């Protein structure tokens, strides 16, 4: 397994370590429930150094990159990020990603660990201005309603004015750090990208603060499911198009990108399924790969499911026919016919991520 620059820190904190896409990462520290509730109440610190990062520099490189993703790169304003995806020729999702415009002639792209090699092949092939920087980049996420004051306390003044889905280059102890106001929890939060060696130093600075605790992949998963965020490799993969993964509104149909033709065909032939949020009316949880049945007939599949510690019932995502995607639609799922129903996303409605400053 590959180790992140924070591996020794996790060991020191007594984390339960698991293999996630070939990386040794903490599943939990104090326990998933505690870490989840801590994130919603104050703030948590996540090691996301396993994720993928790319720097795209120069107009030609940006144009070439733009043909690889479903977003219209030319329309991303300076300092803003845009959610998107990179597709195969069949329109299937190789990975989802965020593209930040850091300067007129510079982008910063954040992707996931699982499909890293395929993504690198696509982003960096025949593009001299595209640089893959994942292996020299550490990443810390500070997430929770108190994250702004903590990031300020650590010395990042830019947090004072940084808006949701914006990013800026800054420095910390003389080293370059990219600070973005993004995350995967539904809470006010920041992601900090920096060189590997700097990562443990900044991690320790945050951990010494009172209002923040380390959190692992387990809490990251319950937090993101409770707000209905899809996870690459789980809720979608190369066999699923953006139309079926809740990404339809992120497709820039008036630009050219790999997979567009297949996607148009998919769009124009009726009957592709869609992603919906699902809940239970009890503490029972839907589980990944549960077959979804409507009046006894198999119609879909649960792609994510967990108990939602903040909403106190089961939550998840499923792929079902469009005709059965209205909130309130009832299904049964799994071998014991668990009762589930379609519900609006986010399930947890008090998230602070969009809070105005």
């Amino acid at each position, binding site marked *: 397994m590959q180790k992140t620059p924070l591996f020794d820190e996790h060991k020191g904190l007594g984390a339960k370590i698991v293999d996630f896409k070939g990386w040794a990462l903490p*599943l939990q520290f104090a326990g*998933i*429930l505690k870490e989840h509730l801590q994130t919603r109440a104050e703030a948590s610190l996540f090691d996301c150094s396993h994720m993928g990062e790319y720097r795209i520099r120069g107009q030609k490189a940006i144009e070439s990159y733009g043909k690889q993703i479903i977003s219209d790169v030319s329309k991303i304003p300076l300092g803003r990020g845009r959610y998107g995806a990179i597709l195969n020729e069949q329109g299937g999702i190789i990975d989802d990603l965020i593209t930040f415009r850091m300067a007129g002639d510079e982008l910063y792209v954040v992707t996931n660990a699982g499909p890293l090699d395929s993504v690198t092949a696509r982003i960096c092939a025949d593009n001299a201005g595209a640089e893959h920087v994942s292996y020299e980049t550490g990443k810390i996420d500070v997430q929770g309603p108190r994250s702004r004051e903590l990031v300020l306390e650590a010395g990042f003044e830019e947090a004072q004015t940084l808006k949701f889905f914006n990013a800026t280059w800054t420095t910390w102890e003389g080293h370059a750090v990219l600070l973005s106001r993004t995350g995967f929890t539904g809470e006010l939060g920041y992601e900090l990208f920096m060189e590997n060696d700097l990562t443990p130093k900044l991690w320790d600075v945050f951990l010494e603060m009172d209002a923040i605790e380390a959190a692992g992949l*387990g809490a990251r998963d319950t937090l993101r499911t409770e707000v209905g965020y899809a996870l690459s490799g789980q809720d979608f993969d190369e066999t699923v198009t953006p139309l079926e993964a809740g990404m339809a509104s992120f497709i820039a149909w008036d630009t050219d990108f790999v997979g567009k033709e297949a996607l148009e065909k998919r769009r124009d032939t009726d009957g592709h399924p869609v992603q919906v949020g699902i809940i239970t009316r*009890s*503490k029972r*949880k839907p589980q990944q790969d549960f077959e979804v049945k409507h009046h006894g007939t198999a119609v879909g599949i649960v792609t994510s499911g967990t108990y939602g510690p903040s909403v106190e019932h089961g939550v998840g995502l499923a792929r079902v026919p469009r005709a059965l995607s209205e909130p309130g639609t009832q299904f049964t799922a799994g071998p014991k016919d668990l009762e589930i129903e379609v519900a609006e996303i986010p399930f947890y409605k008090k998230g602070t991520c969009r809070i105005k400053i």
Partner: protein
Amino acid sequence: MYPEELKYTQEHEWIRGEDGTCTIGITAYATEQLGDVTYVELPETGVKLAKGAEAGAVESVKAASDIYAPVGGEVVEVNTALDDQPELVNESPYADGWFFKLKDVDPAELSSFMDAAAYAHYVEEQSQ
């Protein structure tokens, strides 16, 4: 490490046998593997379960597994406190976190299970 007075199954359940009734729960090892328990489904009282029959389920934020009746018997009591406080399974697996009680248990069935030392050895092998 595991209470001496209990018997243990390969499915990581414990059995406390007294006067023809048996109390069933899951071991500390099982709760560590599951993580924070969020839901426990228990059998109805009065139901007769055969040895090995499915008796319920236990769910945590990251896992789910079925509960089996390690011995045959009639369900005389279930731990209703787990409805509101599933965390008792983690906090107190051998006392407050018990699952259900069976009566009319054949004492001979109990002799086939592991004692604490054998179970500790079994767990060690499992985790390697």
